[in-house]
């Protein structure tokens, strides 16, 4: 009878953490703990004596994990970055998906694999959603700037909205720039002259 795996997920965002925990629990017989707050991270992780620690690769608190890889660190059995050659291309896939995994010394690859497969799929999904959200935000932001630029042109030149947009678009095409960039420049310049 093998011991139940203990997994710690370091994730600040509650919804994201829940999604990851649910997926992990479906995939393996394991205890999953979430740590949301970076304060004293290494000690909090050590308190769970985990077999595997999962953390978003872009999380700046990852550097606090490094102490857990040291024999002199707070863990009885230090962890190593999940990069074993036995795992083949999985380490690379994990990094592309945005998850970094720390696995305790001596844990067999067969036990790590289902956890990693699940984590990779889930982190990749989270990452994609985050990128889409950022893209939507950016598009919205650009739309706002273009609207302001249109307004400035309409007022300054006494033209209507369609003509203002046409002028922005023509300028952008002539200069080989994006409409949003021309609009941004106009808004900035107008602010300076304002």
């Amino acid at each position: 009878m093998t011991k139940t795996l203990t997994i710690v997920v370091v994730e600040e965002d509650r919804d994201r953490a829940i999604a990851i925990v649910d997926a992990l629990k479906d995939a393996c017989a394991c205890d999953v703990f979430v740590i949301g707050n970076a304060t004293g991270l290494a000690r909090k992780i050590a308190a769970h004596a985990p077999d595997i620690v999962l953390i978003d690769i872009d999380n700046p608190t990852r550097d606090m994990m490094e102490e857990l890889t040291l024999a002199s660190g707070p863990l009885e059995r230090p962890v190593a970055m999940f990069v074993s050659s036995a795992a083949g291309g999985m380490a690379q896939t994990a990094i592309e998906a945005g998850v970094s995994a720390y696995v305790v010394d001596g844990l067999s690859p067969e036990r790590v694999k289902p956890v990693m497969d699940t984590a990779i799929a889930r982190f990749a999904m989270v990452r994609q959603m985050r990128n889409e959200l950022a893209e939507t935000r950016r598009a919205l932001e650009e739309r706002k700037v273009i609207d302001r630029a249109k307004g400035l042109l309409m007022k300054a030149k006494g033209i209507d909205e369609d003509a203002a947009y046409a002028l922005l678009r023509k300028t952008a095409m002539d200069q080989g720039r994006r409409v949003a960039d021309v609009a941004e420049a106009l808004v900035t310049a107008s602010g300076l002259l304002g």
Partner: protein
Amino acid sequence: MKHVTVPVAYMPLVDAAPLIIAQEMGFAEAEGIALDLIAAPSWSSVRDMLAFGRVDAAHMLSPVPVAMAMGLGGMSTALSAVSVLSVNGNVIGVGTPLEDRLRANGYGFDFADPVAAAEALAQVRDGPIVFGVPFPFSMHVELLRYWSRATALGADGIVIRTVPPPLMANALAAGDVDAFCVGEPWGSVAVDEGAGALLLPGTAIWTFAPEKVLAVRTDWAETEPDLTGRLMRAIWRAGRWLADPAGRPTASELLSRKAYLDVPPELIDRALSGHLTVSARGEVRQVARFVEFHAGAASFPWRSQAKWIAAQLQQIHKTEPFDPDRIAHVFRADLYRAHLGAATVDMPGASEKVEGVIRHETAVATAGGGLTLLPNRFFDDQIFDPGAAK
């Protein structure tokens, strides 16, 4: 000329300047390359990006490639430090509670005397003082340990914890750490946020501490010698450009951009000029050579520097005995000579030196005519002889 793009990872710090300047001021372009500078969220991430081939070069804490060669930490890809990007540039600071107690005892925050600073701290502490540092393998840790061992603080008088600098103010407020050692602009950010005061510059402990290196994968340096050379020359010229104070306003302006450090240029200028505001009261201190990118063969990767770093790591982590010459080879004086010789860089005659013996600026003869070595001194006047290192 068709430009080759070289992806380079860096942490948004003042001492990433040679990389940013190489790209922005055209030194990369002159070598027919373009640097794709990728800001990383953590040092672990910088190391992984380099080890996994996401980038070909990186701005790296000088002890990281040495620690990896010694089998310490989470990764073990062979890395080469092909040049030193910066010498010194760190600050040691204390949180507001310690600052208040030091002031109550009449401590003047001279930002200069490490012995007096340690004595003042030893008088006001209740127990070991907890220092936050950016990464376990860093000059920050090595200088703090060196300083505490040789002063009233004592080897057991400090505890070191890893805290990413952007979270340092929070960690101080939460009482998780009492003090910190960070690279700029983070010390100045802490002062401006009213989180604490600066106690010492890193240079007060060792006047010639190699802080960041230009690291590449060892196999990449071997399979891409031409690119390695072009990259090294572009960055060396950027370092030389940075050494001229006339370029300082431009450098501060470029580094302050949103894509790079995203802090006001005035904050960056403090480090570049060595004119630091050490407390929220506006006390200003001037430090000679607070950070050095070029003078005194600053970018030469001395094998003796790698040995000094390795000796500290061994002492801190109680590692097995190691072969110092194998570890020293991580600092690639050989590649530096091979790739920068053609750029009429004045080379030192040797690749190892006794660390800590140069008291004053010293002119030495070189093939190119002459070179001035800068003071290289530990505050306790110890010397480190790489030939005697075990």
